[in-house]
């Protein structure tokens, strides 16, 4: 996302998306990380998502299901296999005794940074500079173009959080459409709710 075209709140969401990708051990930034960041955001669009069942827990569960990650994400499986450890077998045993919920919870604790930092755009942008560059996965650039179009249609010069959400919902590439359909969410209904409840997108 082009940071210079985003409002400070939208930049915080983008930074959280980046942190989610890192935390899950993914080597790309995808629309699904933006969806996770939006679902966790203390913003009107985040509240709309949660009200429609798009909660951070459920989104993360779907992401881990579709793309891997979580407690066992980002591990060097080949290196572990070279010393006789099958990560798939370890995961299956842990999941059988603790259940998928505990895995997600513990997965969230892995790589967790200081919690306050993500609310402060000045500090998180520093983290972005110091961090690793992640290539954009499918859906991210498409979502950005959609978000920009939503903003331009309302003669806004900046992409706010609501436009990010609308742009993400309109994307047909990447994992987001699959995640939303797995959660049983109607995209048109979600879009309508964001349009009616979010001040910027009206």
């Amino acid at each position, binding site marked *: 996302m082009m940071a210079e075209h985003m409002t400070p709140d939208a930049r915080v969401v983008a930074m959280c998306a980046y942190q989610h990708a890192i935390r899950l051990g993914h080597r790309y930034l995808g629309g699904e990380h933006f969806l996770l960041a939006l679902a966790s955001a203390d913003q009107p669009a985040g509240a709309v998502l949660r009200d429609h069942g798009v909660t951070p827990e459920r989104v993360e569960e779907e992401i881990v299901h579709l793309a891997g990650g979580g407690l066992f994400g980002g591990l060097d499986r080949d290196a572990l296999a070279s010393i*006789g450890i099958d990560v798939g077998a370890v995961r299956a045993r842990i999941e059988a005794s603790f259940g998928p919920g505990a895995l997600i919870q513990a997965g969230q604790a892995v790589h967790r940074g200081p919690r306050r930092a993500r609310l402060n755009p000045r500090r998180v942008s520093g983290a972005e500079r110091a961090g690793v560059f992640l290539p954009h996965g499918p859906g991210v650039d498409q979502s950005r173009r959609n978000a920009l179009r939503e903003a331009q249609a309302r003669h806004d010069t900046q992409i706010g959080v609501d436009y990010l959400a609308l742009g993400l919902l309109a994307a047909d590439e990447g994992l987001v459409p699959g995640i939303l359909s797995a959660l049983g969410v109607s995209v048109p209904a979600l879009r309508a709710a964001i349009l009616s409840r979010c001040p910027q997108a009206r």
Partner: protein
Amino acid sequence: MLTAMESALEIAEGASSTDPDVGLRAVAALRALTERLEILQVDSARALGWSWQDIAGRLGVTKQTVHRKHGQRTGKR
């Protein structure tokens, strides 16, 4: 599932590989896996009401070490 003997042999092969690239990667990956499992088990033990003292004893570290590492996440209590 590998038997203990087979598994021990493979560990000897990988972790003591003469190729440092293979051996060091295996050690680093094992450390990462251990960290993940520690988080899961410590959180579980705390949820079951275990004291930091008991958790530290099982992990073979001091109470201060385990508390400093996990205390903020699972709550002081």
